């Protein structure tokens, strides 16, 4: 496989890079190589959004635009895509409506976070021809921190931009360029002694892994990116999974949903919410829009962090993982995947191929999943819980599954609490019995996110909330449900 330069659409033309290290970030390239300083570094870990850029990809013949954090995106992952930065959106003399509205509404003070906000809002504006409403706007800027304005004028600007004459991106030249780039062979980039591969088929992946068994697999880089920017680790050779369509499929099969391991969290959650609306609040609180755009569901699962937020719910919903070993596939329930802290069941050469989430039975399933963190948006859970009961026509619990993140070295089921539920009627006494049993299921740690005592108490209280919502009919149990209307 011969090597070639990284190629992507940037500033109105196809841009080639052949001398950057494979783990050079998009932000470093913009600021230090291209001397385009509109995009800022605020944290270099994908948590502040000052570096937000928008990536374009061709999906079903259309240009799909998504905001991501350029500080933790490696440059070679841009191959075949389009990169848009604040310099593309408008100039002081010719501002885009989003920019004009930010000026008119006094949406910038120190201005350092502003280019990032502009990019998040521009992506939203491009994707939504009419203003999607306050909640959607808040979500669109969930990955952008501002320390000056208190956000109110930015939220106002997002709406005001739609009141100005619409100015949509001309996607024609971009699509044409991306079509040309698609004709290039899959990326094999080599620089500074390291290889970076971006295969487009599982069969190619198999061959590359055979030749480079030590190569690091990379998906969204929302965690691996920090190994480089914060820990200054050398990743060695890298195989990027983000260009393999086989891993990016979402399929509805007769018994449920099959989500490719490389599906972005944003898309995975859309499908999961469609299948089961109770995912909604968790999906909303999971990281931020740019992280959900870049990160993948498979990455969240394989990374296996004890505070990964997708896993508790997947566990209680009976999700199964399909592992692919080249000439075989094997399947296991997701809880069997976790062997210990940062240890999983993947054998050498295997990858996670897809996640299968069964549909709910036609009736009697009760399900909730919630996370609890210091901040509502874009925070790491102190505790993340998921609850599923299968209740028969007589109110008897036929099956019970409970799982938590943040309570053990891995996301983990709660066998004692489950046992206390199965066979019982779903009532307050059963709920309290399960709460009591839950105390034996976990020995959580204290850390900066919460003390062990808090975690235990909140885990118990989430189980109580599950009873209150599904059994006791208490309407209001969450602060996220409350909205004040102006007097």
């Amino acid at each position, binding site marked *: 496989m011969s090597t070639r330069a990284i190629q992507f659409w940037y500033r109105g033309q196809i841009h080639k890079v052949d001398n950057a290290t494979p783990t050079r970030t998009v932000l470093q390239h913009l600021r230090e190589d291209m001397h385009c300083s509109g995009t800022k570094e605020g944290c270099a870990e994908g948590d502040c959004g000052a570096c937000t850029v928008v990536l374009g990809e061709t999906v079903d013949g259309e240009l799909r635009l998504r905001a991501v954090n350029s500080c933790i995106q490696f440059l070679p992952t841009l191959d075949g895509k389009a990169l848009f930065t604040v310099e593309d959106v408008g100039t002081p003399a010719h*501002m885009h409506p989003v920019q004009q509205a930010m000026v008119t509404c006094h949406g910038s003070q120190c201005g350092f976070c502003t280019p990032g906000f502009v990019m998040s809002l521009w992506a939203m504006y491009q994707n939504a021809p009419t203003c999607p409403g306050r909640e959607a706007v808040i979500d669109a*800027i969930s990955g952008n921190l501002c320390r000056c304005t208190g956000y109110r004028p930015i939220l106002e600007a997002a709406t005001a931009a739609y009141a100005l004459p619409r100015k949509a991106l001309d996607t024609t030249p971009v699509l044409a360029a991306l079509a040309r780039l698609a004709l290039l062979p899959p990326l094999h980039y080599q620089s500074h002694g390291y290889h970076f591969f971006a295969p487009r088929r599982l069969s190619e992946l198999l061959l590359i892994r055979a030749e480079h068994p030590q190569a690091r697999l990379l998906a969204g880089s929302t965690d691996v990116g920090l190994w480089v920017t*914060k820990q200054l680790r050398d990743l060695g050779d890298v195989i990027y999974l983000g260009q393999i369509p086989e891993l990016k499929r979402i399929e509805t099969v007769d018994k449920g949903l099959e989500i490719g391991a490389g599906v972005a969290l944003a898309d995975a959650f859309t499908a999961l919410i469609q299948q089961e609306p109770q995912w909604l609040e968790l999906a909303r609180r999971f990281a931020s829009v740019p992280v959900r755009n870049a990160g993948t569901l498979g990455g969240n699962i394989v990374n296996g962090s004890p505070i990964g937020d997708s896993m508790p719910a997947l566990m209680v919903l009976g999700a199964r993982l399909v592992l692919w070993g080249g000439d075989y596939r094997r399947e296991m329930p997701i809880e069997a995947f976790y062997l210990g802290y940062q240890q999983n069941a993947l054998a050498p050469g295997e990858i996670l191929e897809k996640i299968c989430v069964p549909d709910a039975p036609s009736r009697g399933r009760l399900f909730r999943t919630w996370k609890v963190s*210091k901040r509502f948006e874009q925070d790491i859970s102190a505790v993340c819980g998921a609850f599923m009961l299968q209740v028969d026509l007589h109110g008897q619990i036929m099956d019970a599954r409970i799982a938590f993140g943040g309570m053990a070295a891995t996301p983990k089921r709660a066998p004692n609490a489950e046992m206390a539920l199965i066979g019982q009627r779903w009532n307050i006494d059963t709920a309290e019995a399960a709460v009591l049993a839950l105390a034996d299921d976990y020995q959580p740690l204290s850390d900066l996110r919460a003390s062990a005592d808090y975690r235990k108490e909140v885990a118990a209280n989430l189980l109580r909330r599950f009873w209150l919502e599904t059994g006791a009919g208490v309407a209001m149990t969450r602060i996220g449900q409350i909205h004040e*209307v102006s007097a």
Partner: protein
Amino acid sequence: MNIQRDPGPPVATQQSVGKSLPHESAALHVTGTATYTDDLPELTGTLHAALGLSTIAHGRVIRMELDAVRAYPGVQAVIMASDIPGANNCGVVVHDEPILADHDIQFYGQPLFAVAARSHDIARRAARLAKIEYESLPAILDMDEAIAAQSWVLPPADMARGDVTNALATATHRLTGSAKVGGQEHFYLEGQVAFAVPRPDDTLHVYCSTQHPTEMQHLVAHALGWRSHQVSVECRRLGGGFGGKESQSGQWACLAALLAWQTGHPVKLRLDRDDDISITGKRHPFLCHWEAGFEDDGMLLGVKIELASNCGFSADLSGPVNDRALCHLDNAYYLDAVAIRSLRCKTNTVSATAFRGFGGPQGMFMIESIMDDVARHLGLDPVVVRQRNLYGPSTGSERNLTHYGMKVEDNILPQLLAQLIESSDYHARRKAITTFNTNSPVIKRGLALTPVKFGISFNATLFNQAGAVVMVYADGTVLVTHGGTEMGQGLYTKIRQIVAEVFGLPPTDIRFTATDTSRVPNTSATAASSGTDINGQAVYAAAVTVRGRLAALVAQMCNCQADEVRFADGCVYAPGFSEDFADIARRAYAARVQLWSDGYYRTPKIHWDAATRTGRPFYYFAYGAAVSEVAIDTLTGEMKLLRADILHDVGRSINPALDTGQIEGGFIQGMGWLTSEELCWQQAGAHRGRLNSHAPSTYKIPTGFDVPDVFNVALYDGENVEESIYRSKAVGEPPLMLALSVFFAVRDAIAAGCGSGSRPPLIAPATPESILRALKQGREAA
């Protein structure tokens, strides 16, 4: 000194002042074309710096092996304490803070050495190759340990008035309590950065993201063993400051300068975010134990307070911060008999520093805690107790002298509170919330109103001075330079409006140079909310001087009096005469009239006796009040601010939109301090004393979701009683303290979940865990 004050046209005809112009850089901000220090084009040969940091909180360096650092390809220089030719100090008041630690380590992350290399990445990688052996000593991390060990950065201080012992003894009720509030990371979006460029003839120019260019100049000169006129420091804009780039930018300016001096190359030092949060100062955490005596109606008769702050390892600005806390312990309330003991704790943590409010918020937090407790003890609505204890009117009342001897001359709070209670529908909502809470087992709502009275001026009188230069070019365009820095607050915009107003020019005819110590010397920090107050006056004085010369010229031409000459709409008018301003400027140049002038201002009336801690430290007070309504989840402790109503006094606003922006932003920032922003230090093990919340992933400032659905902000209709610039009032810091209403609304909601009469022991920040703990303890006590 008497400032020649132009009566000016009546407010209604002002052309620029009073208008909601956008920020002067707004169009640059939104297009990514506003350049910050890290965005400046790098000169050939520019090197990039990184730091080596200690990995213990307290102890000594036994051996520091840097060979591998020096040998790393691309490294050009490594400096240690012993390489500093001048003063190894960046302590600004007390010289107790080394730029690089020599042997003694006083906090985890203290800089030990600095590397300059071809790239930022190389410098960071090289810095990690150092081998350092330490001898560890026991570390003091919190205030209780420090108080027990009598570990102080500065000696304890007292402030008192009246006979507290007697007041407590005779009061109908007597109550004790304690209150605790955490620190706060500034989290300016642009991290600390300095770019030092060697210039000819033993001089150095430093581009620095700083609120205090003059102090940077002094520190750099001292570190190099130079004199002030060899160093110039420049800053066009900061990506946020909030007090975190006042003294705290000094160390990085010095290190960049030292490396530039040693290598002869330009050197840029930009801190990685994690380093920035770990090793730069923060807001002081405070702890308070109090005893109060009061009557049945909540009227406070006497209060005795021990007020401790965690100052970190060095004095930094802790003296003035604690003094301001003492001067704001009254907040809006008349304290008849009061005795405060102030403890300035020394701990093995990063030195605490200035942060928006500068001790004021912490002092006010304490008295508001006392008001809240008094009300809950008596079973009264806290708003009633707060109203009852307000300062009286300036005349006909004895209740208008602060405990440090300054008369409150324009107390508008009784009217302001009444107006806000009305506009926010406080009493009806109070009833509705009580009903809601009765019927809602899980979610509880809370409501609180808190006032703000904040003293404006630097406590230290000498800093209340400013200079400026206004230059009119012969084509009629204007260039302004002054000592204040632009960090987003809109100072340059307001300055532009002031100059435009004086000359009757469109604002776009006024431009700025970057703030530069070689243009205006001996400047004060842009801090203490003083930016527009003092720099605006200096600029005004300069502009009026130039305008006076132009008016004299026109008067001579037109045979009229100078005061008959008017400047408006880009023109100059005299009876029977009008001409473009640009033409007049050309005429003036041809007539050899000086078209530029300096301007200088010093705040009148203020004085402060540091020994007795009495005087009139403040030119005036800024006032405001907020009503906040929150909901808490009694299962998880999570909370949400549902509605906030703010009425704030900015005098006669120079720019209502910018002032509103300061109010909203300050309020949300204050809410972060009191709710989600928690600083977590490692409490045990080898890394004891390490700050674990050192990045946005672990330190949580508010996001868009945290903005209340209903957010009503109004400016109080009034004007400054003092002759401030256009009768405006400072607005940088005061609104932060409006967020106290959020905290006490949370406490109100918790109390609703605990039963009547409870005083839930809520500690700030009110994180979910803190809220749940207070609920539990409150229920146990009830």
